[in-house]
Structures are given as structure tokens and as C-alpha cells.
């Protein structure tokens, strides 16, 4: 049966490649016209300073990267939840001061944001009105008729109401056929009358999603014009512009979610962009990280915020990928613990698992995203003891950024996870949090005493209980991305980052048996790192459905050439010189009658030589490898795409010194920590003084500008060549 196994192995490899391509297809679907959209041309000063900015619930992290010499600067400032851009601007001032540059020296700002996600999670989006084709107003009410669960799942399932309420849905008298030809012309007078009523009913955003508009969106565009002429202040999203694909429900839902988050996101991005321009000059380029780890221009982000639902977490995963590549770990569990929540994801063979759709709360849209799971537990999670059960609970309530944990001296009184870390000595009171914040152990003890009194135990026992419970919650999330997907966590290393990740990473690696626990340099700003190191690329694509027999090599070659020009123009405008650009053609193709499509990659040279015959035979063999069979059916082209990308940035890491195992030069002072039921002697180390090869025997605390790492008793931390701390159980064969 070796033959079968080989076949299946092939199949799986192909499946992975296939998924990757689907991701890319959808990525391009997300912004199909970015390359040709007018008004996006930008100039680039070329000083090469890139700024990554990640806004979390508690802190705003910044990372400044000088592409010319690979040097980095980091900064951390408190987030400003009422208007996040205030925190961003504070951070910029701070980082410019520490790097000794003027804000106007920064040419690119890359930003991961949770604004869109929070809007959905808190239900604070816009009131959305919807226009459908006549006969289709129930499109969201009926959805795909799918009921989750097994046989009898309908007994307990309740459907959540559509984000565009049915009472705010109107129908347009119009109809396109599947080939995009007008069957029923748009009745402009009737829709104008209905729009007047709808637009004055209190809606804050409008979605227009007409039947068959993926084939021809002329009516969608016309209705959008009419709507704008009535109420220019209400933003309009049209479905073919957001998701130019077949399937009316998915397109409508995705567009409605876009409308739902759009006013909030637009306001945020445009404020931020305005402020950046004021400080950095009009030439500054703001780009927003998309859910799938790609980059989006500020304008595209404001028009298509549905692609940003996972923007924040994607930055962390991108950063972890970057670190993993440097440190040569292929399989990673990423663990990003912030103040209010924790995001986990799985990276296998240096590829982050992605999904074809994005899910936030109850909402699912057709926009690709990195598969990130979020739990509502972080450093700010509040511990409490319910009177009735006398159980110790942690979260999901959070002290957030304001007032924050009691130890931060900002008026917080409730005991949080951070306070427990302080009580146990894991977070020494002389640790620096963003450099400027002080920690009070007395206030932390006072807060945690609420718990120890309620449970009649010592304050240390209460604090350790809080840590153990919150760790167990994290384990639940890590199991979701690993065990529950069929992966064995023992085959993965665990990378801990975010403000609180390095404090908990060792304990989690122990619970999951995932070694080593990796603490990257600058763990508090890894998301910002991910934001800043994302590679520039551009695509232009076109849906073009035709049977292969009905077209010619020459026609397809011309179309691909046009797409290539279109994609390259924008990249050139962004400062990537023509000779640094690589072009790849992609042809989406399937058997006529199939629903899925495969993407065949081909270089311009190969297409010129082999033409469509080369494509169809490649498709047949890929189909056979992927699915174990090929058919003698007709081939059908579904779409064409040209991908142009700049060369991958190589950032030189400044850590090149290599020394012995002795880390004593980095010792700051002795301390005591409480772990495994007793107080123990430990040392505090200064991370900036550690050099590759150093070994730190636990228990130990490692502090740095933005973060504090904990190495537990019985474990050892080893500094690798790129300045990561790798924590192993003492005596682990790889810890030698």
C-alpha cells in the first residue's frame, strides 16, 4: 500500500498548496480593483523609515525600522480607547524622540487595528439599510438554510437577526441575468422614492446587493449614485465592489458587515491619516494590515473594512512568523496575551493556518483571514469569588486600560492577573512597563487580599490560584487550534508575546508539552514588528469565465499583460523599482461543472511558450495529485490574475556577538519569587545585556523595556543566535 500512501501524501501537500492558493484568490477578490482605482498613486520620499503600529486594548506598541541598516526602535504607550489615534500619536512622538528623528523622516506607517473587530463584538456598528433585487428581500433571513449541529440540531438553535434588519430592507425593480445582460431595466423613479424613505429612517450606512451583480453591477452603481444624491453623508457599499463573486447570500452578508463597521473604521482611519499627514507630511503612506496578513491602503481599508476584522491578531502572527523564520522553527503555537484578551494561532511548516472566511462572534463573512482564536482573558482580567459557590473565577471582566490593574496606581482596586503576577514576584516592582509606568506591590497585595480573605487562604496562594486558572483558560484556546484540529501540541514550539505572554509562556508550554517556549526580542511589540515587516505586493485580477475551447492563447496573453501593467504601476508608485519586481500569472481553472477552482501558477515566459495547453495539462495533473483523479471533461477558465511583488526585505539583526553560557554579567539583582507553593531565591536579569549562548537557570526573571519574562524553577532559558530566549525543561536533550 506504499503507493497509496505516497498518493495521499502528495494529495495532502497539494491540499496545503491549494489552500494557500485559495487564500490568495480570495485575497485578490478582497480588493480586485486596487491597482486601477484612481487616486491611489503615491509618492515615496525614500528615506526608508518604516513604522509598525499595533493598537491593543491596554497598550499601543510601535516599532520603527530603518531599512537601510536594519536598526529598530520600539515604544510603548497607553492606549486611548475613546480615540485610539491619540495613543498612536503619543507613541509616534515618543519613538521619534528616542530614535532622534523627526516625524517627517517616516515614510511608511503600517498599522494593525482591532477597531473593526471591536465594532462587531460590541454590537456598536451602524444601523444598516439594504437594497436587494425584487423578490430577494429575505436573502439574509433565509441565508443558506443551514442549521448548525448534527441531526436534531434545529431543536436548540436560535438564529441571530440579520445585521441589516428586514424592516429596513427594500427591493429594487431591476434584474440582470447570469451573463450580466439586463433582463429588467432599473425603475429609477420607484427606487428613488423608496430610498428617500429608507435614507431618512435613521440608517447610518447603506448596502446595495443585487442579484447577479457579480456579472454586471451597473444597477448597483446607479442605485448608489441615486442614494448619494439624496443623502451624500450616508456611506454606500455595493456588493460587487466588496466581493465580486457568485453566491447572493454570501455576497450580501459580507457587504452588509462591511457597511456595519464602515462608519466607525472610516472615521478612525481618516482621523489617523489626517494626523499623520499633519506631522509627517503629505507623502506619508499609511497601510493597514488585513485579516489575512496582507496590506491594504488607507483608502481601501476605509472602503472595505470587512477585510480588517482580524487585522490586529494578524500582525502578531506575521511577527511570530518572521521570528520563527529567523530562529528556524517551522511549527509554532502563537500565544499573544495582552491586557484584555489573548489570541492564539497555529503555524505549521512556516505557514499560518488560514480560513476562507472570517468569523467574529456570530458573524461570518467571505473574507480570508488567519485562523486566530481569541479568549477574553488577559493581564487585566479580574478575579472574583462568587458568594454562592465560593469558587475562584478569573474574567471575562477586565480592568482594561483604565483604571487598569491595582498595581498600576491608576485607581484600580479589583484584583487582576497582573496583580497576581506582582504579588508572586514575577513582575518585580522595579519592572518597567513602557518605561514610564510604576508598579506598586502594596496595592497589588491589597487587591489580591480580597480573594485570599474570601477563600481564607494566604495572599500568595490566592495569587497562584489566579495564575493557574487563567493559564487553564489559555490552554483551552490553544487546544482549539491544535488538538481540536487534529494537531499534537507536542510537535510545536510555543511563542509567547504581547505584554503578558512572556510571563505565562513557560507555564503554558509545560501544560501543553510544547517546547521550547520562545520569548522573542521585544515581545511586547511583536505585532508592530509583524506590521512593519510585511512584504509589498500588488495584484490585478479579472473574473473571466470561458470554456478553454472557446478562447485563444493570444487573447489570454493580452489580458494577462494588461493585468500585469496595471499591478506594476501601483507598485512602482510605491517605490519598488521595475527591476526589483517579480511577476507571476495565475489562472483559475476547473472542469466545467465543478464548483471549486484550482489556480495554476505560470511565469510570463512559460505561458508564452506553452499557452493554454500547458495550463490544462498542469491542471489535470494537479487535480489528480490533489484529489486522486482527473476527468476527461471540458476545461473552463474562471479568472485571470497577475501578481507583482517587490523583493523580500532582509533585515539584518544587530545581535552577532556570541559568548559563553555564563549569563551572570546580565544579572541585575537577587529577588524572591513564589512558585509551586513556596518562596524561592531567584535573580533578575537585564535582557539587553544577554548575549547569544547565555544560559539562565530558573527561577529567573528577565526584564526589558516593554516586557518581563518568567523562567520557572526546573527550567532553563537559552539565548539563541537571533536573541530569542528559548525556555526548556532542565535536562531536556535539546537544552544542552
Amino acid at each position: 500500500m506504499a503507493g497509496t500512501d505516497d498518493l495521499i501524501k502528495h494529495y495532502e501537500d497539494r491540499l496545503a498548496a491549494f489552500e494557500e492558493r485559495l487564500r490568495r484568490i480570495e485575497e485578490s477578490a478582497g480588493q480586485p480593483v486596487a491597482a486601477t482605482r484612481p487616486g491611489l498613486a503615491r509618492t515615496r520620499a525614500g528615506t526608508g523609515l518604516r513604522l509598525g503600529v499595533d493598537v491593543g486594548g491596554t497598550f499601543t506598541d510601535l516599532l520603527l525600522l530603518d531599512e537601510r541598516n536594519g536598526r529598530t526602535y520600539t515604544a510603548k504607550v497607553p492606549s486611548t480607547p475613546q480615540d485610539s489615534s491619540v495613543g498612536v500619536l503619543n507613541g509616534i512622538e515618543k519613538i521619534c524622540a528616542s530614535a532622534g528623528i523627526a516625524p517627517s523622516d517616516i515614510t511608511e506607517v503600517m498599522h494593525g487595528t482591532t477597531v473593526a473587530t471591536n465594532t462587531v463584538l460590541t454590537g456598536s456598528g451602524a444601523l444598516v439599510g439594504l437594497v436587494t433585487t425584487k423578490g430577494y428581500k429575505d436573502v439574509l433571513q433565509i441565508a443558506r438554510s443551514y442549521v448548525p449541529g448534527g441531526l436534531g440540531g434545529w431543536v436548540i438553535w436560535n438564529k441571530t437577526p440579520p445585521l441589516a434588519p428586514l424592516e429596513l430592507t427594500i427591493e429594487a425593480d431591476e434584474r440582470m441575468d447570469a451573463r450580466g445582460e439586463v433582463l429588467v431595466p432599473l425603475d429609477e423613479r420607484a427606487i428613488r422614492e423608496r430610498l428617500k424613505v429608507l435614507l431618512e429612517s435613521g440608517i447610518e450606512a447603506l448596502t446595495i446587493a443585487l442579484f447577479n451583480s457579480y456579472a454586471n453591477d451597473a444597477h448597483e452603481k446607479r442605485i448608489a449614485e441615486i442614494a448619494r444624491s439624496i443623502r451624500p453623508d450616508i456611506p454606500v457599499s455595493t456588493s460587487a465592489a466588496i466581493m465580486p463573486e457568485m453566491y447572493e447570500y454570501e455576497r450580501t452578508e459580507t457587504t452588509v458587515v462591511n457597511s456595519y463597521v464602515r462608519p466607525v473604521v472610516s472615521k478612525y482611519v481618516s482621523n489617523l491619516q489626517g494626523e499623520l499627514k499633519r506631522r509627517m507630511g503629505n507623502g506619508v503612506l499609511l497601510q493597514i494590515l488585513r485579516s489575512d496578513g496582507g496590506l491594504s491602503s488607507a483608502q481601501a481599508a476605509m472602503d472595505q473594512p470587512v477585510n480588517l476584522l482580524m487585522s490586529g491578531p494578524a500582525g502578531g502572527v506575521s511577527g511570530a512568523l518572521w521570528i520563527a523564520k529567523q530562529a528556524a522553527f517551522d511549527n509554532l503555537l502563537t500565544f499573544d496575551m495582552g491586557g484584555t484578551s489573548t489570541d492564539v494561532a497555529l503555524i505549521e511548516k512556516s505557514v499560518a493556518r488560514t480560513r476562507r472566511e472570517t468569523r467574529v462572534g456570530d458573524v461570518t463573512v467571505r473574507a480570508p483571514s488567519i485562523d486566530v482564536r481569541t479568549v477574553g482573558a488577559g493581564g487585566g482580567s479580574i478575579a472574583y469569588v462568587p458568594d454562592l459557590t465560593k469558587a475562584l473565577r478569573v474574567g471575562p471582566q477586565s480592568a482594561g486600560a483604565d483604571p487598569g490593574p491595582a498595581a498600576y496606581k491608576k485607581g484600580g482596586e479589583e484584583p487582576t492577573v497582573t496583580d497576581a503576577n506582582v504579588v508572586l514576584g514575577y513582575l518585580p516592582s522595579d519592572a518597567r512597563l513602557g518605561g514610564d509606568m510604576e508598579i506598586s506591590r502594596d496595592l497589588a497585595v491589597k487587591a489580591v487580599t480580597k480573594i485570599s480573605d474570601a477563600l481564607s487562604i494566604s495572599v500568595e496562594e490566592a495569587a497562584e490560584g489566579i495564575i493557574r486558572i487563567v493559564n487553564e483558560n489559555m490552554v483551552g484556546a490553544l487546544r482549539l487550534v491544535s488538538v481540536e484540529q487534529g494537531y499534537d501540541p507536542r510537535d510545536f514550539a510555543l511563542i509567547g508575546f504581547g505584554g503578558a505572554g512572556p510571563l505565562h509562556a513557560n507555564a503554558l508550554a509545560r501544560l501543553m508539552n510544547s517546547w521550547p517556549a520562545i520569548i522573542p526580542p521585544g515581545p511586547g511589540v511583536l505585532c508592530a514588528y509583524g506590521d512593519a515587516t510585511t512584504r509589498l505586493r500588488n495584484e490585478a485580477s479579472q473574473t473571466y469565465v470561458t470554456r478553454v475551447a472557446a478562447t485563444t492563447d493570444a487573447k489570454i496573453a493580452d489580458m494577462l499583460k494588461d493585468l500585469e501593467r496595471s499591478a506594476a504601476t501601483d507598485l512602482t508608485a510605491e517605490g519598488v523599482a521595475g527591476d526589483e519586481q517579480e511577476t507571476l500569472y495565475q489562472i483559475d481553472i476547473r472542469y466545467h461543472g465543478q464548483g471549486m477552482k484550482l489556480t495554476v501558477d505560470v511565469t510570463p515566459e512559460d505561458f508564452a511558450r506553452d499557452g493554454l495547453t500547458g495550463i490544462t495539462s498542469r491542471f489535470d495533473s494537479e487535480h489528480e495529485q490533489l484529489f486522486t483523479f482527473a476527468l476527461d471533461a471540458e476545461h473552463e477558465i474562471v479568472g485571470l490574475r497577475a501578481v507583482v511583488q517587490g523583493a523580500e526585505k532582509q533585515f539584518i539583526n544587530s545581535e552577532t556577538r556570541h559568548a559563553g553560557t555564563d549569563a551572570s554579567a546580565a544579572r541585575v539583582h537577587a529577588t524572591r519569587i513564589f512558585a509551586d507553593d513556596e518562596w524561592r531565591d531567584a535573580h533578575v536579569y537585564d535582557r539587553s545585556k544577554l548575549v547569544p549562548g547565555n544560559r539562565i537557570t530558573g527561577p529567573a526573571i528577565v526584564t526589558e523595556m516593554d516586557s518581563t519574562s518568567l523562567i520557572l524553577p526546573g527550567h532553563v532559558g537559552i539565548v539563541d543566535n537571533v536573541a530569542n530566549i528559548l525556555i526548556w525543561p532542565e535536562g531536556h536533550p535539546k537544552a544542552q
Partner: protein
Amino acid sequence: MTAKIIEANPTPFSRVAVDPITLDIVENALRNARNEMDAVLFRTAMSPGIREQHDAFPMIANQEGKMVVGQFGSFLYGFINGYDGEIEDGDIFITNDPYSCNGAVSHLNDWLMMMPIFHEGRLVSWAAMFGHMTDVGGKVPGSLPTDAKMIYEEGLIVPPTKIYRQGGLQDEILNIMLHNTRMPEWNKSDFFAIIAALRLAERRVRENIERFGPDTYISAMWDMLDRNKQAMGAIIQMIIPEGDHKAYFEDWIDDDGMGNGPYKIACTLHREGQVAKFDFSASDPQSYSSINFLLNEEMFKMFFGAFTINLFDPQILFNDGFYDLIEVHIPEGSILKPKKPAALSCRTHMLGRIFDLMGGLLGQGAPEALNAAGFSDSPHFMYSGFDRNGEWYQLFQIGFGGIPGRPAGDGPDGHSLWPAFTNVPNEFLEAYFPLRIREYATIPDSGGAGLHRGGNGITIAYEMTEKGEISIHDDRWLTYPWGVNGGEPGMRSTKRLKRTDGSEENIPSKCDRIAVNPGDILYFNTWGGGGWGDPLKRDAELVLADVKRGLVSEDGAKRYGVVVSRGNLDTRATESLRRQMAAKAGEGQLFNRGFETIAELKNRARRETGFEPPVDPVFHGAAAAE
């Protein structure tokens, strides 16, 4: 005769203790493998029935053939016991013959493939999957002939056959099968899609064994089966009272498409000690037409288990472990156990009705947990012919009615009662078939009134753009999806065909070969779900919201005693109407079927539906059921 299993390695498995973490990992890995089987299938299958609607069901079983993950329970045990031959590494079996696998599949359209999974010379697991093929030959396109009297009219019959032998595809057999269908390309693609899914399951099972070792893997599966048995044992004790009293419930299929009906299915339930006993003896005998349903007893157990466990632990990975705790008696020759060669193709109505029956049967002991009726059918629409270029087109599509009102809340409008099923996107239909969908909307007021409203049915307006023929299989055009606990029944299903010349006709619920021309529009209107609880107690604001959403009309609001005029709630008129209605209402009934007796229902059939009532069926060998 029992199959002979050829194992190169005779070492028996030994049961070892499995720690809870490992058990969870194995369980989740198997759950994931099942999901991956679906994913591969849906990507590569061509027929819309599988590709878009997901009419296919995967399963992974232990080496004894007991389902460990899947949906419709394990028929493998029966297959292994009934197969007269050898089973060895590299074999894959195919069958579509209900009579040779004791109803594991219940009509010829379902191609069932079963693959033993070996590891180092030992049988360690089974993977199986069946999918509904759009066409398997027979007398009508779609292979679901309403008027078939024998199974031979319904397509090519394939008894359990090795379609792969020691790893090699038996092309000639596959060729014969494909030559006997109107849609060979779809069937071929769907066939290989299922094989690809089975191979994936094999790969995953072997990975698990490599990871955990064979004894741990096998023991983990046993543990999972035990866990279910324990859970189901507790549930059975909880919901079925012990003793002599037998709960009884009956329901009907309206007709057989040949003018006879209704056909009754009936069941009693009681518990003796640990064991729940279901007895279908009072059901009607088999029909002369194709509405018979060969119900596999094991499958019924699975229906029962899956249906009830949702109330207690919807996350559990459901399996076969509890089968010993249930006994099912179905008499030979009844409509649920017809004798060969009775026709079976249109068993869909009975299959759905079994769930309404089970709900009514179980709910009598616990009215708060009782759901209304709505699991009434899977409305089928078929459309085929040669287009103007002379190319054959053929569509098979399953529709959805309203989910019934439930203790948990209102029934969703136009949603599926079948797991995993989804509708076919209308844009897809228009892109690939000579059709335009003029309207796709919920039918106001079709859901039964209740404290929790029954879900509305759907109207689909199919405009044909080519000459062709349509077939329909549907029910609940005469009897209603019943309401419970004071809730009202849902609206019946109807089908109207509007011709280009302006004429309109009612189309019966079961018919074949209705000729259609370009421009003709079929309005296929599905039934609404029954209502749950007293409609007079529904919050008037909720009724008003439904009116604003077009789900209930202003007139329909009166069924709730709610007066809405020009979009506004008339509070005073509502109070007075509700008072009047409450005074008139008698004792609240547990079940509201919308009729007193079958005879009374038939008397008003013509007036209300436009159709003559079906005549009482005549059975041959009627004694079999008495």
C-alpha cells in the same frame, strides 16, 4: 454467512487504559477527519445535490464496524455479517441496494462506499460514505419515479461489490454503472470525490495509530462508545418512564402519488428496565407505489439518540455505543419494512415523517420539551430536458420549509431540518441551468401561530427558459404540520404552474414528467412549521415586529389576537380581541393537527386544496399489519 476478513497479522488488540487527554485528542482528531472528508467531497463533487446541498454522509467506525464518528449510524455491522466473501486490505465496496444491506441506504440513488482500513496487517477501522446521485437510471430523470411498482423501475441495482480490489479500481464495473445513468459525468466525479474522502480518512486513522499505538487507538474508540452508552442510558431513564403504560403516536403521509392515501405510521414506546422499546406494529402495510421506506432499525436508534442528546450535550461526538439500550420492532411487510421488490425511491416523505412521529411520541411525557411538527418532508424539484443546442440538462434540488416552533424559541424561516444541508444559491442555478429564479422569499403567515411562531415556508418562483419536464416530490398538502401546547398548525404546501398564456394550474405534490415551456413559472411553496404554545401569550411587540418585517400580515396578526393597523399596534383593540379569543378558546390541546378525523379532512380537501381527496389505500396481504 459472515464475511471472511483476511488479516496478515493475527495479533488481537488488547484493551488498555487511555488517559483522558489522549482520549480527547483521538476524539477530536476523528471529528476533524470527518470534517475533512466533507471538505474534500464538497470541493470535487459536481452534482449540486452533493456539492451545494451536502446530501452525503461520512462515517468512521471501529474495526468491528461500530460508528465512532458520523451521522446516520453504522450499517457496517450488518454488511459484515451479510457479505458472503473476503474482505482484505485495498478493498473498497460499493452498493446502492437497500435490500442487500438491510436498509443501510434506503433508495438506489444513494451510492454507499465502504472501506476497511488496515494497519500492519490488521483491520483497525472502517470509513464509509454515501451520497445521493442525481440520476441512477430507471424510468424517469432523477430516478425517483412516483408510479414505480417495483424497484427494478428505479435504476441500476448494485449489490455489495468490490469496486476496488486490492487497491485496483474495477473499471469495468464502474463503467457499467456510469453507462446506466443520465448524468455519467456527475456520477463519475461524485464517485471519485467520495473515494478521495475515504482515502483521507484512512490516512488520518493511520496517523492516529502511528501516534498513539494500535492498542491505545482501538481502546480509545471503545472508550468513546462506552461514554455514549452511559450518557444515553441516563437520558433514556430520564425521558422515558418505566412501566406498562405505552406512549402512542401516529402521523400520516398524505398520498402515494397514485391517488391513494393517507398512509399511517404509528409507534408505541415504553421502557423495561434499562431498555427502551419502540414498536411500529400499528403502521400501515407496504404501498404499491414508491413511498415505502425500508427503515434500518439501527438507523432508527441513531435518529432517536441524536435527536434527544442535543437537549443535553450537543458537543458530544455521537456514536453507536448505546444500541443495546434500545429495541425496535418493525413488522415485515409494513410500509417501514417492505418486502423486495417493492419500490422505494420516494421514501423521502416517510424518512421525514419518522422525525415528526418521534417528536410526538417522546414529547407526550414532557410537553415543555415537545417541539411542533415541521420535519415533514424534503421537497424535491427536478427539471430536465434537451436545451436548444441539443445538450441534456438535469437538475435535482431539495427545498426547505419552516422549522417548527420549539421550547427554545421561534422556528427559523425556510431553514433545513437535515444536518449539514444548505440551499443551492440561486445565482448558481441561473448560471448553470436554463432557469431564472424570479422570487425567493418567505411566505407570510405560513408558520403556525404560537407563543413561539413556527418558521415560514418559502416560495420559489422557477421560470423555465427551455422546453423540458419537471418532477415534484412533496407532502403535507393535505395534513398539516401540527402545532403543540396551544400552538396552531403550519400552512400546507402548494405548487402552482403559471403558463405563458396566462393559465394557471395546481400541480399535485407527487408527479413526474410535467411538460414545461420557456416562460412558464412554477411557484413551489413549502409548508410552514407548526406553532408552539398559546399565540395569545406572544408579546404583541414581537407580532408587530414580524408584521413590519413582512413575516406576518396585518390579518395574520389577528391569529395572535393582535391588531395592527397601518403599521402601528392598536393596544386597546389588541387587549379586547385577546380577551374575546381567550374566552372562546377551550382547553388547550397538546396537539393541534388542524382536523378532527381523516374522513372529515378528506371532506374538505377539494374545497381547500383544489384536489380530490386520495382514496383509502387497499393493501394486499393486509393481515400482515394486523
